[in-house]
């Protein structure tokens, strides 16, 4: 464990961002009830966000040390890191999920889910387009039937 590990692509940036995030959470936690007592609602959030911040500080320092020892030629350029961390496929698929979630209520469960499954299957080349559509239709009907009639979950 000790310093034998290598940095993951983008780890440096991510750990700095997480440090900032922890500090923000700590700030919010202190805002709950300050340091007014040992059994206030804010006591535990302050403690856990302080631990978050502390652990992240520790990690950032560790990472700085590892980075210093990493030979220059082993370091990846920013675009390569970006490519490994966020390939186009993941960005597009995530956007597809976002679109689905936004359309879920206006279009209703049946239509939006069918559309999502079709486009998802076809985009990820799960099968031939025709079979994708059929599988999507079957899946939507099965899930809808199961949840709506058997489990009484009123889907949007």
């Amino acid at each position: 464990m000790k310093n034998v590990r290598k940095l993951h692509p983008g780890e440096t940036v991510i750990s700095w961002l997480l440090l900032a995030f922890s500090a923000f959470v700590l700030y919010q936690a202190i805002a709950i009830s300050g340091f007014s007592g040992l059994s206030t609602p804010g006591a535990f959030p302050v403690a856990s966000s302080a631990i978050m911040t502390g652990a992240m500080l520790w990690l950032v320092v560790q990472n700085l040390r590892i980075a210093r020892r990493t030979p220059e030629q082993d370091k990846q350029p920013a675009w390569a890191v970006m490519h490994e961390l966020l390939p186009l496929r993941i960005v597009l698929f995530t956007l597809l999920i976002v679109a689905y979630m936004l359309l879920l209520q206006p279009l209703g469960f049946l239509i939006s889910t069918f559309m999502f499954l079709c486009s998802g299957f076809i985009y990820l080349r799960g099968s031939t387009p025709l079979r994708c559509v059929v599988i999507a239709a079957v899946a939507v009907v099965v899930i809808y039937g199961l949840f709506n009639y058997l489990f009484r979950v009123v889907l949007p």
Partner: protein
Amino acid sequence: MADSMFGYFMMSWLDPSLLGLTALGTLAGIYVGAIPGLSVTMAVSILISFTFSWDVNNALALMVGVYIGGVYGGSRSAILLNIPGAPSAIATAFDGFPLAKQGLAGQAIGVTTVVSVIGGFIGILVLAIAAPLVSDVALMFAPRDYLLLALMGLLLVASLSGESMAKGIFCAAFGACIGMVGMDPMTAEGRFTFDTVMLLGGIPYVVAMIGFFGVSEALYQLHHIGLKPIKQDVSKIIPSWSVVLKYLPLSIRTSFIGVFIGALPGTGGDIASLMAYDHAKRSVKNPSKPFGEGAYEGLVAPESANNAAVGGAYIPMLTLGMPGDAVTAVIIGALYIHGLKPGPMMMIETPHLFWFTVGNLTLANIFLLIFGLTGIKIFAKMVELPKGLLLPLIIILSVVGAYAINNNIADIFWLLGFGVFGYFLKMAGFQVGPIILGVILGPLMDVSYRRAMISVGDSTLELMHELVTSPISLILSLVVIWLIVSQTALPRLIKARFSKGKTA
């Protein structure tokens, strides 16, 4: 007396309709449990209205079946998809999913089924012979003792952290903060709510669980979309006697953890399974594979414990009319609606109920063994679906599951947020396990810590005093200290010293 006891015990075995309903319930329960977001609690509440006009025994038989099947069912999706179907199956995913990745999903499910049934039987056994005793001990647990229990569970972070302890600690603390969001249950004050009503209800931890496990894993898998799905070996699914015997001691030990944690009114199968996993990691020196990479021991422990916790949860319910967990709380409601009076007098006034339930639980466990070991092949083959089909389906299941918990559309955005966040954490070498540990144990620690503090009027000195004077607290404190010490470098130092002394 003994005669009538046995008669009540056998009631559900001999009556065809009770037998059928128990079987049906168990089968349905497995599926309810396997679908993330559909909880046993929810299923049993639906059954209350559904069985309103039924005979009470029929209604209870169906509920018992669903309960037993549901607790087990959570392991299915944890092993196959890395989405724990229920919070009590989180620890199952740690080693179950790696096994599925190695093409051993069938074997994993087989072992899980057998140890679940063993755990179930031990739970029932304790319920049958020691219920009043256990419930009396459970009542003695003070808020400070729950705090110590949660601390014990939290020490699992050390072994779930992966490559860096700092990352594990960060994740656990972050999880605790997620658990804090919403209205503080003790003062009704908003925490991390940014003054919105939407956040007042908090973030259901099942949403965090599905997001961090299911969605982030699905996004992560997109890197390997081109890879062929792993062929699942489904030849030897039912574990041999020698395998069962090998894991039996661990299964029995963790079942006792499960039954006791289950019997405590403030904790249930989720915490039981985490503590059992921790116990396995400490006590098993040579696991079949390293923990976290597909150790069967990592399946045996949590699955024995969470099924044993069912018997445990019935202990305070049947002896005192107090729920051991959320499901038994709903069953108590059902008893009211059917004109029974759940409470401490139940054992005296309606003694048949106790032995009927014990017999019924036993029966459901036998059905669990049968249903659990059949149809594994089809389940295992699910993992062989091309990723292009599997991943969008996982997303849909996750979304529906997250929505189903509270019928709240905002929850699905949390789901995606956690999924994306979890994806980046994974890419940077963080483990998501400790986050869920924090989400589950954080709120328990928060409320029990404050309850303990309020009880002593915020005086740390008095709390310390209580920790050493109450026998339960003293034992728990010593265990916590021992766990911490044995985890740090201290024992190694002593050992080094010792061996040096010898050679010198």
